[in-house]
């Protein structure tokens, strides 16, 4: 198929950037979206033009490195990661617009590559159980009801891609933050630091400049892993009960 691509090009963080249009032909329906961009980049290389920079790594939908706002939706028209999106979702003659994630907490580094280290800093604020290597109890000394383990797992499947932030009209990171707070709040291992974790992670999330939540549900609808909105409710609960009862004045 033949396609027209409107791609955001930006030389570096300071550059203003703008859209550039490219024509591309000979795309097969079996290609993944990123393979289509590989073809474009080979073409550009041939012509001596700088290839389009985009983040990607595992290309099997689990590392969370790929991004892209495709035709007005994070990760494109299907609820999956961009690397798992295939060209059969498009038809011959289509125009496809490709933009980077837009959020002040995710500054653009080049073209479609954004800096998501804000997510790392949110986890560093408390997204862990403080146990050192060794000196832990036998694994089966901590029984966990299967339903809780399963629900904690569902929250833990977050791949940290940032589609939730990209989809949210407020560029809010609540779904991401709440997934980790939820996972650890539901498990016995997470109880000791439960209050501290909720307070610190929310504070970090705010400090990074992510927006607030309007409960539109766009984040969950676009999440490639289908992380549920109930996590945000749980985070709110955790946070409110933490601030009223913790010792942090």
């Amino acid at each position, binding site marked *: 198929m033949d396609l027209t691509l409107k791609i955001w090009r930006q030389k570096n963080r300071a550059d203003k950037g703008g859209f550039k249009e490219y024509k591309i032909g000979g795309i097969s329906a079996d290609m993944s979206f990123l393979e289509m961009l590989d073809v474009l980049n080979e073409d550009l290389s*041939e012509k001596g033009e700088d*290839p389009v920079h985009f983040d990607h790594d595992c290309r099997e939908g689990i590392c969370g490195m790929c991004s892209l706002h495709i035709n007005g939706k994070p990760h494109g028209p299907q609820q999956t990661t961009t690397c798992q999106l*295939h060209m059969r979702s498009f038809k011959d003659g289509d125009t496809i617009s490709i933009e980077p994630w837009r959020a002040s907490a995710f500054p653009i*580094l080049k073209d479609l590559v954004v800096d998501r280290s804000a997510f790392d800093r949110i986890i*560093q604020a408390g997204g862990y159980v403080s146990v050192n290597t060794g000196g832990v109890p036998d694994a089966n000394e901590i029984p966990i009801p299967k339903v809780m383990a399963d629900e904690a797992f569902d929250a833990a499947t977050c791949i940290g891609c940032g589609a939730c932030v990209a989809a949210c009209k407020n560029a809010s990171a609540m779904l991401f933050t709440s997934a980790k707070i939820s996972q650890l709040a539901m498990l016995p291992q997470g109880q000791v630091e439960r209050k501290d974790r909720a307070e610190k992670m929310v504070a970090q999330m705010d400090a990074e400049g992510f927006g607030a939540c309007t409960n539109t549900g766009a984040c969950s609808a676009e999440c490639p892993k289908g992380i549920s909105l109930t996590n945000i409710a749980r985070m709110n609960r955790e946070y409110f009960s933490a601030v009223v009862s913790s010792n942090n004045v």
Partner: protein
Amino acid sequence: MILDSKIPAGPLAEKWTKHKFNMKLVNPANKRKYDIIVVGTGLAGASAAASLAELGYNVKAFCFQDSPRRAHSIAAQGGINAAKNYQNDGDSIYRLFYDTVKGGDYRAREANVYRLAEVSVNIIDQCVAQGVPFAREYGGLLANRSFGGAQVSRTFYARGQTGQQLLLGAYSALSRQVANGKVKLYPRTEMMDVVKIDGKARGIITRNLVTGAIESHSAHAVLLCTGGYGNVFFLSTNAMGSNVTAAWRAHKKGAYFANPCFTQIHPTCIPVSGDHQSKLTLMSESLRNDGRVWVPATVELSEKLRKGEIKANDIKEDDRDYFLERKYPSFGNLVPRDVASRNAKYVCDEGRGVNETGEAVFLDFRDAIQRDGEDTIRSKYGNLFDMYQQITGDNPYQGPMMIYPAVHYTMGGLWVDYNLMTTVPGLYALGEANFSDHGANRLGASALMQGLADGYFVIPYTVGDYLAQNTIERISEDHPEFQRAEAEIKERVEKLIRIKGEKSVDHFHKRLGKIMWNYCGMARNSDGLSKAKTMIKELKEEFWTNVRVLGSAEELNLSLEKANRVADFIELGELMIDDALAREESCGGHFREEYQTEEGEALRDDENFAYVAAWKYLGEGKEEELNKEPLEFENVKLTQRSYK
């Protein structure tokens, strides 16, 4: 140089305990005076960085991705083995050790493997304490499954995303140490070289992938946790960025490279669909529990299939050749990975492949669906079926899947002693980057185990032993050795840009991949390997005269990053071929066509080849020197594998 594996004396089961006692310790107050560099943040890297920081060392952690959480360990699906014997089904540390040595076709060190099995139980405890949501039974205790043909259920899992959950556990421990100020993170940073001072590894040179800045980092020890080199084949199940550069640069600085030709080809991957293909996707091997592997009985039928004249479901039962069930009646579709892969290749070589490229076989769930119902199959494999449909556009509930083997894991890697130290003092290799535990073939659910064993439970002891015996003095990054190394790297980067040739980096990578796959893939022979060696030499020359790298060195530049990696892959490819040529036997993932039994099975030569081949780099354009570390088996009896 005589390779000293430093395996402690004494009975197998006591070696590690005794060794831990005999090792020197670093005074707690002194730990903060030592700096340790960890390259790579996968299971091995993240767990090592976190554990060392917890002990009090200053750690610098590097990864080329935008976050430590992206490392490719995250993609492991199946599970992690541990000799917990929670199922009361006869498992033990000794059995896990035995299975691993046997599964590796007797080309691994007994002592290392025993230690791996020994600490496997601690890994599960550690991960659970971190909040890793493993699968559980209704009683709240951990669930296990049997994996990869093992006769006991010792695999712990988190649905089909075990690697993800374990990595996020290690990443959380790492993040905690970043918050504590004990780990400094360097994401989007690639290691370019190891710096040796007075014969010891004392730092690395890196390139900041965003700004292009070449920087020096000094330390008392350097840990390479940089994964495997499967991407030498261009197409593999590795992530796009997985590369050999860190290990290769270390090799050129004096670290021996062991058993480079040992690669694992995984049988159940989604076949290549065309030239545009950038990577291959693995589907869990558990599919072979219910799926039946077949191709049409005749070449004519396959041709019709390929032309689209008939569909798989049109082919009558009598015209189907369930070749694994036919050849291996007792194991059937569950034969080990290498056997399943090789047989798929054979039928496709005969012209009986089933997709357009002729390189695919069917994996059919028709009978399983008829027997158990679609719902049961959906509950077992739903996510895999969905993934298949997402990628291929075909519905596997209605017709058979198509699969083909793909490069998945590399058992070879930097040679390390029992302490995980390479032949360069102070330079360590952990996880898939080293060679030590899997011999010639890795068992399912053992990669995660090894990465975490090395990082959480081995390196914290062995690095301490080294540091305690070495100087506490820091070396400034202005040291002439750093300056010289920086200048060399800058020159190399500039050189790549200066070539301004005609062909893209991917062009060379694809050609390299084809050579490796055709001549050093599932089956190898002397003629092919010799031919491939010439081809790679030519490719290398062409690369350095005709590659086109656009943009500048002082910016985010993907084609420069790739060029730098592919240049190293080409050199590694040549060494793999040398290694495959030198090993005149078949074992595990290494199948030399000249050495097979009458039934076409791998024929080991324990008399002459029960050794680790450790290659020493002698300089640009020179043949590498083969060093042999003999493998002694005092506890297991060497037998020929049979799955008939």
